[in-house]
C-alpha cells in the first residue's frame, strides 16, 4: 500500500491562497501528474505532501494514516527537486547514499544497493565524479537515484526535466516512466509541460490558481475538457475557442453567416482542436487564410472566420497562400461547447 489522499487541503501564504481546498487521490503504483501554468500552486502542493510546508487547512493521508502534522522524514517519501539539490561537495556515490547514511544503513547493504541503483539509472561509471563534473542529464539521474535508493514507495518529483534539452527530456521521460512501472512506485510528478503530462501520466490533475480545474486520465482531459481553460491548456496548439452568436438560422461563429446548428449561439463558445478541423470542398464554414506555418510533418493554417480565428493543423505541406478562401469542417463528435460566462462545458447532445 502506498496511496496518497488529500482532503480539502488549503495553504495560505499571508493573504494569498496558494492552494485552495484541493482534494485528490493518488492510488498505489500510479503515475499522477500535477499540471498547470506557472504560479498555480503545483510546487506548493508537492511540498505539502512532502511535509516541507505546513498545511493551513485540511488533511493529508498516506496509506490511510493522517500525516498532516508529521515531519518530512516520518512520511517516508522521496523527492526529486526541480534544481536536483545535489550536494556539490559530495561525489555521485556519496550523494546517492546520503539518506542511507543518515539512517545508519550498514555499509555492506549500502554498497549493494548503490551498485544496483547505479546500474538502474546508468551511472555506474560516474560514481566518483562531483556534481559539477556531470552533464545536466547525469545530474538528474543522480537526483533520481537518490530518490529511489531509499526504496520508499512514494516518490515526488518537481519538474525534474525542466532544465534539460528537448532530446534528453524525451529520453528521460521514457526512463522515469519505465523505472516507476518496474519498481511499482506511486509517483506524484509536477510539470507545466502538457506534453510531459500526457505522455507519462496515468492520471492528470490540472491545477489553476490553487484549485483543481479537472482531474482524469490523459485521454479524458484531451477528449472531454471540462472547462475552456482545460481545453486551451491541453494540446499543441491548444483547442480553438471561438465565440458564437445568434444567426438567422441558428448559431453562427461571431461575424460569420454560416449556420452551425439550429439553436441560439449567444453566450456560448465553440471548441474544436486544430487537428480535428479539416479543409472541405463543400459545406462547412467559410473563412480566409491569413497565414500558414510549415512544421515539417504538418502545417498550421490560421484561418479567419467572421471575427474569430481558427488554427488548422493539416498533414503535409499545403499550398494555401494568405488571402485564399477555404471551407472548414469537422466530424460531429469533435466539437465542444462551453458556456462563455462560466467557462464550463455544456453537456453534450446540444450540438
Amino acid at each position, binding site marked *: 500500500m502506498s496511496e496518497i489522499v488529500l482532503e480539502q487541503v488549503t495553504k495560505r501564504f499571508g493573504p494569498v491562497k496558494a492552494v485552495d481546498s484541493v482534494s485528490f487521490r493518488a492510488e498505489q503504483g500510479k503515475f499522477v501528474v500535477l499540471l498547470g501554468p506557472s504560479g498555480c500552486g503545483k510546487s506548493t502542493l508537492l511540498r505539502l505532501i*512532502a*511535509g*516541507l510546508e505546513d498545511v493551513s487547512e485540511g488533511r493529508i493521508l498516506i496509506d490511510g494514516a493522517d500525516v498532516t502534522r508529521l*515531519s*518530512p*522524514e516520518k512520511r517516508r*517519501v*522521496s*523527492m526529486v*527537486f*526541480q*534544481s536536483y*539539490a545535489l*550536494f*556539490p*561537495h559530495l561525489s555521485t556515490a556519496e550523494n546517492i547514499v*546520503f*539518506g542511507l*547514511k*543518515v*539512517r545508519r544503513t550498514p555499509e555492506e547493504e549500502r554498497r549493494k544497493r548503490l551498485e544496483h541503483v547505479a546500474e538502474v539509472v546508468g551511472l555506474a561509471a560516474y560514481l566518483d565524479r562531483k556534481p*559539477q563534473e556531470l552533464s545536466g542529464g547525469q545530474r538528474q539521474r543522480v537526483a533520481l537515484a*537518490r530518490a529511489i535508493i*531509499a526504496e520508499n514507495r512514494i516518490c515526488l518529483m518537481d519538474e525534474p526535466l525542466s532544465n534539460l534539452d528537448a532530446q534528453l527530456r524525451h529520453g528521460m521521460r521514457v526512463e522515469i516512466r519505465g523505472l516507476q512501472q518496474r519498481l511499482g512506485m506511486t509517483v506524484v510528478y509536477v510539470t507545466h509541460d502538457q506534453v510531459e503530462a500526457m505522455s507519462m501520466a496515468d492520471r492528470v490533475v490540472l491545477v489553476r490558481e490553487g484549485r483543481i480545474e479537472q482531474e482524469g486520465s490523459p485521454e479524458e482531459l484531451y477528449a472531454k475538457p471540462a472547462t475552456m481553460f482545460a481545453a486551451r491548456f491541453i494540446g499543441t496548439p491548444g483547442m480553438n475557442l471561438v465565440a458564437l452568436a445568434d444567426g438567422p438560422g441558428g448559431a453562427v461563429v461571431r461575424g460569420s453567416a454560416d449556420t452551425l446548428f439550429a439553436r441560439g449561439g449567444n453566450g456560448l463558445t465553440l471548441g474544436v482542436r486544430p487537428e480535428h478541423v479539416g479543409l472541405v470542398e463543400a459545406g462547412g464554414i467559410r473563412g480566409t487564410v491569413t497565414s500558414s506555418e510549415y512544421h515539417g510533418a504538418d502545417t498550421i493554417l490560421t484561418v479567419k472566420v467572421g471575427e474569430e480565428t481558427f488554427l488548422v493543423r493539416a498533414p503535409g505541406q499545403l499550398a494555401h497562400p494568405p488571402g485564399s478562401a477555404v471551407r472548414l469542417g469537422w466530424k460531429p463528435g469533435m466539437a465542444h461547447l462551453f458556456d462563455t460566462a462560466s467557462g464550463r462545458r455544456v453537456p453534450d447532445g446540444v450540438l
Partner: protein
Amino acid sequence: MKNVYGWLLLTPAAILLVGFTHYPAVATLIDSFFTTGTVVRPSKFAGLANYASLADDPIFWQVLRNNLYFAAATIPTSIAIAMLMAIWVNDRLPARALVRMSYFTPTILPMVAVANLWLFFYTPQIGLLDKVGAMFGAASHNWLGDPSTVMACMAVMTVWKEAGFFMIFYLAALQSLPPELEEAAKVEGASRWYYFRRVTFPLLMPTTLFVLVNATINSFKLVDHLFILTKGGPDNASNLLLYYIYQVAFSFFDTAYASTLTVVLLALLAGMAIIQFQLIEKRVHYR
C-alpha cells in the same frame, strides 16, 4: 614601444606601490643587517648581529609567546562564534535585521573606542565586571593589572570585536547555499546537526579559509587596544609583537632592531599564510 601606453597607465599605481610598499619592505630588510646610526656613530654593516641579539632578547620571546597565545585564543573562538551567529541569524527569526545589525555593530567601532568601552568593564571596583561580581560576593579584581588575567581579557575583547565581522562572510556564504539542499536533507531524515556536519560545514570551508587567514593576520596586526588599556604591561605580560616593534622603534629609537623584529614578523605571517593555504586547500571544496 607598442606597450608605452600600458606602461604610462600603470605608472601612477606603480609609483605608489613601489614608494610605499616595496621600497620600505626592502629597506627594512637591509636595515636589519646594519646597526642603528646616530649623529656620532653612523650606521654600519653588522651582519646577523641584530638577529643574534634578538635570539637573546627575553622580551622578544615573551612577546612572541604572548602573541601565539593571543592568536590561539582569538582565532578559533571568533571563527566558531562567527559561524554560530551566522547560522542563527540566517534563520527566519523575528527582528532578524535588528539582530544581525547588533551582531555587526562591534565591527564598525574603531578598536580604540572598543578598548575604551571594555576599560569600563574591566576597571577594578567601579567596572561592570567587578560590580556584577560584587553582587555575588566576589572580591574585587584588577583584571588588567594581573599578569595572569590580562591576556585573557584582551582575547575576550578581541573576539567580541572580530566575530561580528567574520559573521558577515559566513552569512553571505550561507545565503548562497540553495535552500533545497536543506530540504533534501530533511526529506532524507537528516537532523540539523547532521546537516551542519555533512553539508553546511564543508561547504563553508572556502569561507573558513579566508576568515582564518584574516584572523591570523589580525591577531598580529591588532594592537590599538594596547595603547588604551595596558601599554603592553604589566611587565610585558600583555605585550604583542607589533606593539613591541613600535616601542623599540619610537620609544627606544633602535630602528635597526625594530627592522629586525619587523622582518621576523613578516616572515612569520608569510610562513603561516603559506601553510594555511597548502594544508587546508587540499580539504577545501571550491565550487
